[in-house]
């Protein structure tokens, strides 16, 4: 192999093309030094000029502590801030409309309702998911919001109140509150009595056939529980007292679980979101929770959703 450079002969003119070579040669293969077209070269110069200008007006040159700022003062943070502002401005009319609409009137405006549900879905992900789960299906001790069983009421207004004032929140006068006695722990009922009450509750919820224990339990229930849970066991939303005859159990419906509840009682809490979220956000959250399939006082939208649906995809 010959040296890449050959100074004895230097670059030569290639005969067939009339173009100079680069002056090097590998195994007999040479490279033509084909000149660039003029316009190509000037485009290249223009790119250089553009690049210099770019470095002046935009942050481009790295430094030890920080890079150059550029005369336009552009920053990616600034761009993000302005995009966020724009998004906020775009949301403003919807939020204003929500502020102006009492929640019970929301179903009359299907378009606004749809926006509220969408906004509520997002707010739910941020605020509510830790307890209620991302699908709002809850878990033991945290209510499932998809079903049709409501401790404190399932209309839009009820949900709004619960959200705003929370449950058992000290310092909020309007908070939802009640206190089930710890019948077993405080000695109101003896352990055997607790078992009898459990038998009765299992009977009225259709999980066990009636028996002697349940009969004894019925009397104990009438003496101790009806004030909140009602004589028919269907509960009372004023006290957040659950319906004991249905199939939905917040703390479990097995013998052990019910006995545990009667012995120690439960008093779940939920923050008063009125302190932290704007009224419009609370309305959106209420609309979303109401839309999950169990919302009460359902009002059919003005037009069937299918007709009002937008064109797309």
């Amino acid at each position, binding site marked *: 192999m*010959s040296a890449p450079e*050959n100074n*004895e*002969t*230097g*670059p*030569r*003119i290639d*005969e067939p093309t009339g173009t*100079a070579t680069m002056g090097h*040669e590998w195994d007999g293969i040479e490279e033509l*030094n*084909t*000149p*660039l*077209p*003029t*316009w*190509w*070269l000037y485009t290249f110069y223009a790119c250089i000029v553009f690049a210099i200008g770019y470095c002046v007006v935009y942050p481009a040159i790295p430094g030890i502590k920080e890079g150059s700022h550029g005369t336009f003062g552009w920053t990616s943070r600034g761009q993000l801030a302005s995009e966020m502002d724009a998004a906020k401005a775009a949301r403003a009319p919807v939020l204003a409309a929500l502020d102006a609409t009492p929640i019970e009137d929301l179903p009359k405006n299907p378009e606004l309702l749809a926006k509220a549900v969408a906004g509520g879905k997002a707010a739910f992900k941020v605020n509510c998911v830790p307890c209620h*789960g*991302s*699908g709002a*299906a809850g878990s033991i001790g945290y209510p*499932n919001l*998809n*079903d*049709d*069983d409501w401790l404190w009421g399932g209309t839009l207004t009820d949900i709004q109140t619960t959200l705003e004032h929370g449950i058992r929140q000290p310092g909020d006068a309007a908070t939802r509150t009640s206190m089930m006695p710890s019948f077993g722990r405080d000695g109101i009922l003896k352990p055997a009595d607790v078992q009898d009450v459990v038998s009765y509750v299992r009977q009225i919820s259709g999980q066990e056939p009636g028996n002697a224990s349940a009969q004894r339990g019925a009397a104990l229930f009438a003496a101790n529980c009806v004030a909140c849970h009602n004589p028919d066991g269907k509960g009372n939303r004023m006290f957040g007292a659950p*319906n004991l005859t*249905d*199939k*939905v159990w917040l703390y479990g419906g097995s013998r052990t679980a019910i006995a545990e509840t009667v012995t120690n009682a439960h008093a779940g809490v939920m923050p008063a979101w009125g302190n932290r979220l704007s009224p419009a956000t609370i309305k959106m959250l209420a609309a979303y929770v109401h*839309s999950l*399939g*169990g919302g009460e006082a*359902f009002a*059919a*939208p003005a037009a*069937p*959703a*299918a*007709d009002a*649906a*937008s*064109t*797309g*995809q």
Partner: protein
Amino acid sequence: MTNMDPKGLTRQPPKRLHAETQAVYPRAVDGRFRRLKWAVMTFCLAVYYITPWLRWHRGPYSPDQAVLIDLEHRRFYMFAIEIWPQEFYFVAGLLIMAGIGLFLVTSAVGRAWCGYACPQTVWTDLFQHVDRLIDGDRNAQMKLAKAPWGPGKIVRRLGKWSIYLLISISTGGAWIFYFADAPTLAREFVTLQAPSIAYSTVFVLTVTTMWFGGFMREQVCIYMCPWPRIQSAMLDEKSLLVTYKDWRGEPRGKKSPTGAPLGDCIDCGLCAAVCPTGIDIREGPQIGCITCALCIDACDGVMAKTGRPRGLIDYVTLEDSAREKQGQSATPHWKLIWHARTLIYLGIWSAIGAALLFALGTRQHISIAVSKDRNPPYMILSSGEIRNAYAVRWKNMEGRPRKMQLVLDGPAGAKMWSEDMAKDMAARDLTRIIPADTTSPLRIYVTAPAGTAEGKLSFTLRALDQDGGQVSYDTRFDAPGAE
């Protein structure tokens, strides 16, 4: 390397970073290919400018523009065909057909696309006619280019560039009409009420048209366009090329100095003078030749005047050129087309076309898509019933509202209701009127009695009018396992 330069060609190359652009001033010519080129050019420009103004009635719910790419509503209209975004494979298929069509044409008749139909060729041709109109033919143009700047030259240049600009603006201007209702957009455009994207599109296309057609011209073909490179890989000795029959033309010359017999080429240089890319075809096949055949016209004219047979420069394959040299006759053109590669391209091309037509003819104009809620997968209601939720999208792809029925096929006792109705109205089927050309999302809840096991569930969508049509979607019903 010491002896590589026996002819003493070695000299210092000039210290230049670039090659001077050789301006091309092609001379006007007339002949059969020039006339064909006029016809193709007229046709292409007419198609481009007239298409967006054609109307096609589609009823009150759809636009009446025959060809419309409606980006805002995500629809593509082409006469009787309407394409939704999920059917974009039709457009992909068309593009593939266009690509293979190009191969097919190349395989059959060589670089005909470049010579006649490529927009770069059509617009360059147009601009070169403007040059001739304002500055005169080749010689006058060359003279003017060399002349010093003076009032006359300035006026001519300004006049020429204004016409360039007019052509460019109308080129860019026509483009936007494919994307919106043409008459409306035209009105908005001149009253300055069109969306800014319309103006910026026209601006960009005006600049590129003016630049590529008015100034870059053959440079685009030689340096920028990928097609000639692909093309060179596709040509072989059976491809139709514009070829100078050197065995007939050489030795060229007007008059033999020695008296020895000369070839047919009288070395008038006319073939090089008319060439729009400024090359001399007598140097052999080359990448700069777009096979526009104008040199054939020029040479035929000369041969007629000198009383020799036409076709010294002609469309001929390299193979045939060699055969003619031996005195055999050339393969007839129809036979050239009739070879395996062309037939294979034709087969692929028509297979794709037929498949597209078939898909177009049999496609459903209603469709359904279901996505089941998986978080939570099922719900127990206070009555003990099991509820599943589904997001169902009903699609009416026709330009009129249609009555449709959604039918549930699932576990015994299962019933459905939707978010827009009360639960006690739950049933096994729901009927809705779906607006024209619309996808309607609807949340569907299905409840089944306590104790129902998980299993299959499907939704069927039926159009309840004369045209009918039905589609199904299979999904599942989730339930708690046996405890």
